[in-house]
């Protein structure tokens, strides 16, 4: 058998690099991850096809104030759900199966463990999210163009920024799901909490005066981040990103606070 003790240098210890490599292996070796990512991409593209196809062949007057970029991002509403579940499962899958004990035995510094997990979940969803926004954009513009609707191009002001930030926004949503998963430890609870924050609360807040729903994640993405034509009733892109960073940061900070000292 390989003598491992012999190759160990006395003062060395495991670092972020090891945690990230382990988490990457862990996440990519589960079919559920691959399926969630496939569903994210395929489902979002299908919704984009439907949403862009539904606004073709109108009179030119109908397209007053029309935002072809935002229309093509319509599919991201599905990705909001799936990337959040992906993030939550990355945490609850460990607690539900008992893998967490093996993981923490290998990586007992729990905040480093959480940070490594966040890097991997955030990184994977960032890459997939960016690819997804560009695919949705391309598919959407092609359908709009063939249907006689106005189209957008990457060169137009604000379009590239909208696509890049929308992909990043999905990564932040996945991290919020991860934070909730780490806090709640149970899949059903974590997904319920995530759906409540993303889809339920905006619906409730919608009815209140001055529409506080615009400060919640999904309206921020749909009406501010993924929009090129500015809508006066919505938050600015800067404020929108700041708020989302705050939500995501709060979930992760609570997770980091709770993971230390809590029995695994």
């Amino acid at each position: 058998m390989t003598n491992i003790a012999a190759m160990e240098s006395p003062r060395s210890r495991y670092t972020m690099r090891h945690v990230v490599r382990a988490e990457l292996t862990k996440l990519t070796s589960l079919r559920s991850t691959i399926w969630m990512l496939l569903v994210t991409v395929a489902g979002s593209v299908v919704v984009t096809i439907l949403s862009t196809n539904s606004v073709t062949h109108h009179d030119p007057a109908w397209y007053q104030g029309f935002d072809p970029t935002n229309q093509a991002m319509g599919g991201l509403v599905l990705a909001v759900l799936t990337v959040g579940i992906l993030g939550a499962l990355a945490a609850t899958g460990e607690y539900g199966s008992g893998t967490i004990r093996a993981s923490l035995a290998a990586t007992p510094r729990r905040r480093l463990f959480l940070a490594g997990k966040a890097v991997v979940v955030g990184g994977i969803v960032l890459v997939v999210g960016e690819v997804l926004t560009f695919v949705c954009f391309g598919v959407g513009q092609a359908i709009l163009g063939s249907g006689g609707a106005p189209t957008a191009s990457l060169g137009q002001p604000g379009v590239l920024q909208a696509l890049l930030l929308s992909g990043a926004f999905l990564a932040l949503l996945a991290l919020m799901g991860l934070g909730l998963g780490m806090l709640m430890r149970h899949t059903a609870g974590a997904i319920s909490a995530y759906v409540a924050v993303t889809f339920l609360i905006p619906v409730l807040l919608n009815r209140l005066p001055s529409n506080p729903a615009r400060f919640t994640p999904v309206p921020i993405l749909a009406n501010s981040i993924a929009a090129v034509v500015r809508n006066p009733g919505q938050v600015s892109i800067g404020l929108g990103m700041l708020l989302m960073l705050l939500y995501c940061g709060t979930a992760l900070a609570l997770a980091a606070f709770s993971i230390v000292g809590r029995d695994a």
Partner: protein
Amino acid sequence: MIVARALTKHYRKTVAVHDLSFEVPPGVVTGFLGPNGSGKSTTMRMIMGLDSPTSGSALVNGRTYAELGWPLREVGALLDAKAFHPGRSAFDHLRYLARANDIPLRRVDEVLEAVGLTSVARQRAGKYSLGMGQRLGIASALLGDPGVLIFDEPVNGLDPEGIRWVRGLLQGLAAEGRTVFVSSHLITEMSMTAQRLVVIGRGKLIAETTVDEFTAQSAGKVVRVVTPNASSFVSALREIGAKVTVDQDGAVVVDGLSSADVGRFAAHRSFTLFELTPIRASLEDAFMELTRDAVEFRADGRPIALAASSGPYREEKS
């Protein structure tokens, strides 16, 4: 080397482990013995840094678990048979653990081979039997070639061949100079595997000793007597304050006197004896004796924790 010092774990109102101090030295198998629910698993989880003690400490090689530089290369543990994701293969489970502690990936194949899982290594672990899951847990423990090994009930779910394999494995690891700490609620299992014992009941230390000493403590104090005048012999013994019971076959069992004492007493009172047998207390009896007051749940005055394995229902098997 594992050292527990005044280790204590309280959950809201229940006390799982209380003021537990013991040492687990290298080179021998140390059994961690106690009835179910006596705090063995909680203690092991505290050693592994998974549960935090209410007070006291557990050190591995002089450091807390969280301070270890490469934990899996210093400590290998099997804490429960299902510490893996059902959707991940044994190969991938070991691969991620190897990456976490910079262990060469060829070790994954080596430990899979060592536990006999090579042929099913690429299958999803959810399809594994309890015994295969146990083998995967053992493979994870061996992965980093650690000097300290902790096994919580390692023979659970294994077939007789597997049980024998685990015994050999544990003894082999100890013979290589490693620290081997293995828990069980089965005293007979411990008597075949361990040289040293840490015995707990209701979270408290009952004994820290060797298996030989443990059995010797109460050996030879029970005597079986067969006499045609059983009832008068029993009352004569009770008059002098001896603890006497009568077996189903009519034999008189005297507790607390040596066979010489009983023989002299019978001669003095002119009882005819057909049989006079000192009964060497088994490890099991010693264990029952020691944990009598420390068992959480009882049925018919006997601890049910041990019922499934031995003791009280032994008759059913014959």
